[in-house]
């Protein structure tokens, strides 16, 4: 059934992006906040169109764009992430010499790329969405044009990202040659059917996994992550650590949904991902231990979290993965929001020593940051605890006990570096030669902090409502 309604949320976001570009060129005002509000309005419009399409299963372009409930749920999640990032950028860009209105346009284009990724069953279209996302992200990383670190981040992101894309394209070519199809269901059929050798298809699938592993930063394909996260403007780092990761996992979820146990060959892919998951959890957490820059600590923590999410993919449990992504959105954006709060005009405080005594000096930023860190570490009663609990219990149910043991041990390691920041904030005296004063006149930032705090506690204490919605989303496939 072809229906333009399937295209409407995407169109709304893309139109918003183009309009913001036009407004920027036409008016070219010094204060770019109005562009942020315009983008927020278009995001809200897109979200409203998503809510209207719930349970309708619209499709367009002969089934290459399908709005099932899972896609809609991810649309809403991305819109929320996008709205948070826009709110965080409003003041940041004028304070930190990144005052370019194109930010909002690129952000909306990146969101549209992710929407394309999660709503298509065709690997070519998924690839195109991924490229729309990546190309916008390369530009976003280099937004502080005068800053050498930001330019270096953009450069590294671009070189390694396009290198990974090339692998992805070759993988797609091999899969196409083997399965004569680019649709996920066709590829799964190919792996299930017949006894002919599937070496070419397997190599293709392996290369596709390598490409995606790069984008969602799994060890050993994570080399770019800490540098890019450190150098990019902080709101963009928050975006990179949350949004492309969710989109990548949404795609993995769709590819591997019916895949496990399909044939003897898929066993091989399963163990490859198993190894990646273990490496990501262990290495990500271990390297985070010796970082002294809070932005880098959060970068390695986001690598480690990708490992936990991969456990959910291996367990084949969709609802726990989607819940994890939702919880991760709130706690990670919240943590980065607190980090953005640690700044004043022309100066950002990212080093661990800067955080000494912050908890008492600036109770709101310190207190909320502590809650987000505790949630990332996985303590009850926060969302991070329940998310990990659901993922690990789903894995135990399908018998992945060794993986869960490693995962729990890895998250025990992670407690150390999260708590190190909390200890610095509350139990250490600020050193007299490092004067930290921050500018707290940023209502949008406090709104984001508050909403993320609410999300973390709501998901951690009363997860019932959101779990019902997630179950509706995944059972509708």
């Amino acid at each position, binding site marked *: 059934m072809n229906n333009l309604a399937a295209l409407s949320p995407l169109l709304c976001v893309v139109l918003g992006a183009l309009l913001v570009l036009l407004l920027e060129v036409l008016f070219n005002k010094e204060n770019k906040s109005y562009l942020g509000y315009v983008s927020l309005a278009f995001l809200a419009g897109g979200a409203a169109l998503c809510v209207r399409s719930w349970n309708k299963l619209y499709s367009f372009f002969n089934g290459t764009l399908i709005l099932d409930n899972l896609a809609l749920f991810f649309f809403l999640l991305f819109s929320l992430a996008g709205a948070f990032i826009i709110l965080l950028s409003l003041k940041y860009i004028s304070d930190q010499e990144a005052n370019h209105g194109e930010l909002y346009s690129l952000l909306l284009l990146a969101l549209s790329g992710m929407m394309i990724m999660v709503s298509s069953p065709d690997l070519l279209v998924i*690839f195109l969405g991924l490229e729309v996302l990546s*190309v916008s992200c*390369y530009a976003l990383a280099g937004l502080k044009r005068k800053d050498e670190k930001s330019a*270096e981040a953009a*450069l590294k992101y671009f*070189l390694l990202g396009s*290198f990974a894309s090339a692998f992805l*394209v*070759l993988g797609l070519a091999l899969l196409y040659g083997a399965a004569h199809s680019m649709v996920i269901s066709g590829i799964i059929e190919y792996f299930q059917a017949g006894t002919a050798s599937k070496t070419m298809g397997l190599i293709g699938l392996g290369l596709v996994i390598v490409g995606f592993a790069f984008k969602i930063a799994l060890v050993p394909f994570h080399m770019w992550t800490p540098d890019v996260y450190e150098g990019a403007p902080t709101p963009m780092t928050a975006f990179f650590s949350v949004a492309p990761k969710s989109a990548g996992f949404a795609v993995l979820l769709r590819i591997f949904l019916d895949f496990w146990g399909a044939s003897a060959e898929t066993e091989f892919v399963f163990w490859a991902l198993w190894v990646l998951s273990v490496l990501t959890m262990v290495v990500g957490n271990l390297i985070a231990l010796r970082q002294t820059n809070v932005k880098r600590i959060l970068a390695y923590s986001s690598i480690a979290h990708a490992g936990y999410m991969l456990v959910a993919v291996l367990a084949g449990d969709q609802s726990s993965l989607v819940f994890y992504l939702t919880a991760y959105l709130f706690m990670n954006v919240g943590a980065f929001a607190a980090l953005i709060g640690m700044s004043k005009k022309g100066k950002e405080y990212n080093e661990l020593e800067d955080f000494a005594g912050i908890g008492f000096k600036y109770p709101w930023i310190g207190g909320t940051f502590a809650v987000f860190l505790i949630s990332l570490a996985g303590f009850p009663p926060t969302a991070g605890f329940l998310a990990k609990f659901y993922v690990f219990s789903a894995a135990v149910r399908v018998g992945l006990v060794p993986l869960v043991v490693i995962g729990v041990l890895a998250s025990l390691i992670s407690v150390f570096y999260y708590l190190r920041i909390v200890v610095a904030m509350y139990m250490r005296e600020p050193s007299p030669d490092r004067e930290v004063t921050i500018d707290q006149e940023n209502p949008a930032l406090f709104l984001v902090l508050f909403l993320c705090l609410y999300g973390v506690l709501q998901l951690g204490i009363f997860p019932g409502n959101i779990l019902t919605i997630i179950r509706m989303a995944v059972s509708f496939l």
Partner: protein
Amino acid sequence: MIPVSYFFGLSLLLFALGIIAFFIKRDLITMFMAVEVMLNAANLAFISLAKASGSLSGQVIVFFIITVAAAEAAIGLAIILLVFRQKKTIKVEEFRLMKG
């Protein structure tokens, strides 16, 4: 007529050469060219596999990938220009501000 498998072999060879060039070359433009070679090698693989299987869709896919490569070239050259303006060099060793 040249068999299709030769084209496929050539595409894999080109791809391997692209990977090698990406790792041994030390200036940004050449590394970027290596990535372009890899992308076009994958395009050649698509075309030869489409020819082998007799379906047309593989040849259409190539146009999409060419477009993506063009978009990447636009943004990539802009970024390389940006870093060149800052440091007056495109040697990759010069970009080591962040470590660890």
